[in-house]
């Protein structure tokens, strides 16, 4: 590479072509433009006419200059010049490019990469050995992978930001193991770390260090939490004086299971504060469907906050045996259950059938012995579909015969008659304590308080399967909580009551924890390490450095304790973890972490990286050369007279257009026109782009308007053409759409607009104008075109106009609908199949709505068309019968507009007898 100030050339030897330019000048000057040979009989008159001046046999100087310019631009362009305004210190020796590589780098990753690429390019020019190391992805041994810089260029796309922060101790130990001297370019993510200064000192020992940092502050979202009935998402920024406002977007699944933006909230940072809170108040329905929060416009794992069960609220239905004992609420069989569940779940009550319909997550039954057959089947089906049936024992269950002889489907175990009492006034022994939970139990890890005792319980009948179904036992080994899998769901039985009658378990904190573990209720805060003791969680969806969430694949489960005690790292990637009792979201940026801007010592040069450091000029110069050549072509044509005089301005205009190469600005809505169209009935036609067709359509609607004014009380304004791409349609009650072969397909937005128009009661009258019978796959090219046009339209099933359609009698009584052609088939929305013959009327009780489309091919506009004097513009049929056909065409038009404006009013006449009858009474 050869540099000329800030301009460097990759192929400088090509510049040797520049001295050739003067030679080219001389050559071009002496060669006159080639003559045009023309056949011209008048040449006889020209003989002997000499040219006045002979100067023009040379190329004019400005044309020469133009060509010189083009050639010079091409030569310089091919020499591959690069403009590098930055005069970087080109030094010797090995070079280390050190990335932080954390999620905080992700928003600027591409800009950084460009910068890194240019640095690598320079290093390769300078012949420096280079190593690229990301601190989040350290090489296993403290050896720098030095390679040629060009070699690294191809590897660079493989280096990406990780969704965690560098591990400080590991970084320091790795750095201290390095030997040799090298310079370092450190691409910092801009977040203060306690290990940074030490690492910097290590690097400075080995050579010069330059730091590159984005000047944009780092923004991050902390895990969302519930507080004061709203969801609160704290937002942190690394510099408290910049970026005062952000938008936090809540994403979640819509009822169809498709991920959508559910809510967005603007967050303003208080002046000088580094943290702000986004508060969202969402209905529980939406809250349960939330999957993550994001800071809008920032692609980074830190700007994503995954939500887990701590936000979701389960719906728990409670069915109790009796509800009659009002006033003694503390004795209610479900009181403690409700108290335990209320913070973390939405409770619903009602009959069993209603509850099953509501499909709650959990149905809790307190001392309910048996259910009616249909209820039982419904509940069973619900459990098999994945529900959790939580049953509590009680006097009724103990007294009933259910589950005595054979295993009851909705009970985990068979029960012995009567239950047992221990430690009561009438029994021997102490009330029993709970035994510590076994490893197979979902409660494993919960500590059992000493003061939890059980005085009564229902007793399970020993069965071969009893051991595996028991998840909690009393100290003497009798099952206290049993569980049975049933289909996708489970049935859990607490062998005690849900109130304090039989045991003080419901009064203890253990009860709440047990319910949480069973995923009956959900936590309100992040679970503590204690809560998670002994649980194993597997990563289901993982978060990458850019904040994208994807399926995690199979990764070995992690100990639940680590989820709350450790920060994310390579072996604990952030994402959604799934365990027995629900999901936990591990975010890249934890709730307790702080963001602060990195502070560097004064002697370390800190630079920003800009979008583009070096500007390759090859493209622009070659483009310039091509454009100049094109101008030269035009100029030469013009100069040699080959471009006709009329063609010259057009070609110039073309060249100018080419130069701009930008589409004309979108046409402004003509509001005046809209207002006038809205204030009067205005018939409109769709502009097809075919001038002749559009003219006929306009004349046709004008003719129809004339007829309407003359014969009816409808007095339409002058018809207008409508561009379906740009115009507002809703002000037009009626759109006439002549179908032409050459019409372009409307855009998706236009279709949306058309569908909105149709749903809002608009009527589009399609006219293929070719009289070809439409339907059953037949039809001419226009019908094919119509089919293409209408595929994206919201068109209901169609049928040919039935003899009793309202169109046949909305003003005139008609059975034919001719235009310029007299095709019989005109299609409208099909009547419902169950339409009944109206009593005493020759027609059916038809549907209430107006057909959104009328489709035919009779070229009505041509039949209606009138010129400015009100004379028909096109002949119709022959002689008198033709005039009759035109008259019927007018009548059809009147009927159609009446139908558009009054809907099925005429059809309502069928109700007249009934109305009269009612009036008579």
């Amino acid at each position, binding site marked *: 590479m050869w540099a000329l100030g800030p301009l460097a050339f990759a192929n400088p030897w090509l510049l040797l072509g520049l001295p050739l330019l003067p030679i080219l000048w001389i050559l071009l000057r002496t060669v006159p433009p080639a003559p045009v040979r023309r056949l011209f009989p008048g040449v006889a008159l020209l003989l002997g006419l000499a040219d006045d001046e002979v100067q023009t*046999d040379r190329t004019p100087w400005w044309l020469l200059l133009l060509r010189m310019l083009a050639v010079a631009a091409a030569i310089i362009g091919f020499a591959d010049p690069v403009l590098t305004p930055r005069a970087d210190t080109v030094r010797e020796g090995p070079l280390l490019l050190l990335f932080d590589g954390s999620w905080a780098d992700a928003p600027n990753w591409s800009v950084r990469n460009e910068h890194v690429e240019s640095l690598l390019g320079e290093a390769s020019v300078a012949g420096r050995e280079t190593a690229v190391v990301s601190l989040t992805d350290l090489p296993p041994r403290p050896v720098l992978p030095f390679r040629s810089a060009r070699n690294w260029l191809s590897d660079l796309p493989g280096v990406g930001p990780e969704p965690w922060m560098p591990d400080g101790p590991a970084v320091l130990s790795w750095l201290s193991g390095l030997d040799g001297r090298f310079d370092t370019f450190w691409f910092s993510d801009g977040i203060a770390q306690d290990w940074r200064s030490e690492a910097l000192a290590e690097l400075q020992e080995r050579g010069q260090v330059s730091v590159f940092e984005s000047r944009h502050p780092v923004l991050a979202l902390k895990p969302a939490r519930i507080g004061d009935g709203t969801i609160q998402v704290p937002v942190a920024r690394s510099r408290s004086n910049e970026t005062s406002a952000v938008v936090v977007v809540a994403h979640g699944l819509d009822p169809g299971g498709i991920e959508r933006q559910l809510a967005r909230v603007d967050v303003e940072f208080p002046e000088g504060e580094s943290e702000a809170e986004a508060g969202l108040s969402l209905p529980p329905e939406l809250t349960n469907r939330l999957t993550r929060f994001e800071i809008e416009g920032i692609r980074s794992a830190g700007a994503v906050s995954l939500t887990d069960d701590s936000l979701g609220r389960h719906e728990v239905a409670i069915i109790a045996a009796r509800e009659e004992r009002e006033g003694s609420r503390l004795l209610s069989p479900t009181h403690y259950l409700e108290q335990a569940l209320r913070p973390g779940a939405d409770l619903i009550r009602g009959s069993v059938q209603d509850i099953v319909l509501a499909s709650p997550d959990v149905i809790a039954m307190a001392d309910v012995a048996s259910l009616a057959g249909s209820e039982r089947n419904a509940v069973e089906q619900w459990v098999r579909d994945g529900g959790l049936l939580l049953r509590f024992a009680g006097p009724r269950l103990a007294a009933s015969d259910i589950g005595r002889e054979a295993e009851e489907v909705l009970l985990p175990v068979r029960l012995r008659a009567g239950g047992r009492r221990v430690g009561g006034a009438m029994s021997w022994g102490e009330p029993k304590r709970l035994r510590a939970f076994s490893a197979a139990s979902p409660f494993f890890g919960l500590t059992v308080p000493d003061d939890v005792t059980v005085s009564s319980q229902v007793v399970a009948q020993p069965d071969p399967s009893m051991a595996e179904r028991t998840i909690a036992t009393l100290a003497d080994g009798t099952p206290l909580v049993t569980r049975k899998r049933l289909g996708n769901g489970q049935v859990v039985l607490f062998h005690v009551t849900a109130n304090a009658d039989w045991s003080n378990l419901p009064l203890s904190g253990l009860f709440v924890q047990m319910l949480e573990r069973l995923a009956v209720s959900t936590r309100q805060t992040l679970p503590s390490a204690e809560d998670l003791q002994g649980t194993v969680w597997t990563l289901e969806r993982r978060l990458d450095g850019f904040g994208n969430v994807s399926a995690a694949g199979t990764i070995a489960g992690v100990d639940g304790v680590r989820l709350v005690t450790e920060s994310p790292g390579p072996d604990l990637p952030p994402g959604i973890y799934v365990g027995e009792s629900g999901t936990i979201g591990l975010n890249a940026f934890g709730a307790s972490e702080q963001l602060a801007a990195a502070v560097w010592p004064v002697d370390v040069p800190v630079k920003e990286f800009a979008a583009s450091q070096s500007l390759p000029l090859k493209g622009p110069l070659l483009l310039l050369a091509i454009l100049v050549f094109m101008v030269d072509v035009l100029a030469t044509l013009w100069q040699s*007279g080959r471009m006709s005089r009329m063609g010259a301005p057009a070609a110039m205009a073309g060249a100018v257009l080419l130069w701009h190469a930008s589409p004309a600005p979108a046409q402004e809505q003509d509001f005046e026109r809209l207002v006038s169209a809205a204030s009067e009935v205005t018939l409109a036609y769709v502009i097809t782009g075919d001038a002749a067709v559009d003219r006929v359509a306009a004349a046709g609607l004008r003719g129809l308007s004339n007829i309407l004014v003359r014969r009816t009380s409808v007095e339409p304004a002058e018809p207008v053409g409508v561009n379906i791409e740009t115009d507002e349609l809703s002000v037009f009650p009626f759109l006439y759409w002549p179908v032409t072969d050459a019409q372009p397909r409307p855009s998706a937005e236009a279709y949306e607009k058309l569908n909105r128009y149709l749903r809002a009661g608009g009527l589009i009258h399609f006219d293929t104008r070719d009289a070809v019978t439409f339907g059953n796959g037949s039809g001419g090219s226009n019908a094919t075109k119509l089919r293409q046009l209408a595929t994206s339209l919201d068109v209901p099933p169609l049928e040919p106009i039935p003899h009793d359609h309202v169109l046949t009698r909305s003003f005139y009584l008609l059975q034919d609908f001719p235009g310029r052609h007299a095709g019989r088939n005109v299609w409208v929305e099909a009547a419902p199949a169950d339409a009944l013959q109206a009593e005493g009327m020759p027609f059916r009780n038809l549907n209430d709505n107006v057909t959104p489309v009328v489709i035919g091919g009779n070229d009505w506009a041509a039949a209606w068309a009138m010129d400015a004097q009100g004379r028909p513009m096109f002949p119709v049929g022959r002689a008198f019968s033709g005039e009759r056909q035109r008259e019927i065409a007018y009548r059809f038009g009147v009927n159609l507009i009446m139908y558009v404006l009054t809907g099925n009013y005429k059809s309502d006449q069928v109700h007249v007898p009934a109305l009269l009858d009612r009036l008579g009474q």
Partner: protein
Amino acid sequence: MSVAQATSSTTAQLRREAETLAEKFPPLLASAERLAACVMPGEHGRRRVGTGDEFWQYRPSSAGDEISMIDWRRSARSDDALFVREKEWQAVQSVMIWLDMGRSMHFSSSKSLPSKVDMARRLALALAILLMRGGERVGLANSGLPPRNGHAQLMRLNSAIAEGEDTTDYPVPELADAPARTRAVLLSDFLGDLEPVRQAVTGAADRAIEGVLLQVLDPQEEAFPFAGRTVFESMGGTLTHETLKADELRDRYLERLADRKAELWELARLAGWQFNVCRTGSPASAALLWLYMALAREH
């Protein structure tokens, strides 16, 4: 190749050529008929072949009138003057048409315009149809077709006009064969050397032939919309002229063209002929009407 194939291919070629030839006639004849239909003869009396006994006018007799020419009945009604009864001129006329079918006439500046020779052919044939309908005899000077009337003559004219070609750029009018006291119609662009035309016209005038000169021009020939370095070639390639700035020549060319028209007009005036210009861009019916009127003017 077998004999049969050779024969069939020859036949096919012959037939193709014949069709190529034949296809010209009906359209030309039809378009000429259409054109002729635009002009309704009606201003003067030569509507049918007659023996010349239609009354035209009475005029007072003058010295030199034969006695037999005097209409005694009319004269008796007046007091003193004698009147001569004049009859409508109904003698059959002969019209010789000469049509320039040289290469230069095959020029048309745009695809939408007919070539000059097409225009001239249509005009000539339409004029022939009109004249024959009026009972005149029409001949074609190009091929020495003597003036006659009748359908067969029309067919002969048609084929001669449609087929005729002249390989020279600017052919010379041939009026030497035209019988004396006939009428002549010269259709050409008159862009070539004018001297032969002058000789032909004066020679014809000497033989009491009256006639019409119609200059058929292409719009481009009257506009000269050229610029830049140009080599102009005549249609046959016999004449070339190179210029470096065609637009500089425009004024002088137009001046020369105006001079040429003035010369022709002067020539026509001296010979007692009539001259007009018609452009391929404008309707042929106007030119035909003018031709017809010019031929009929003196009667």
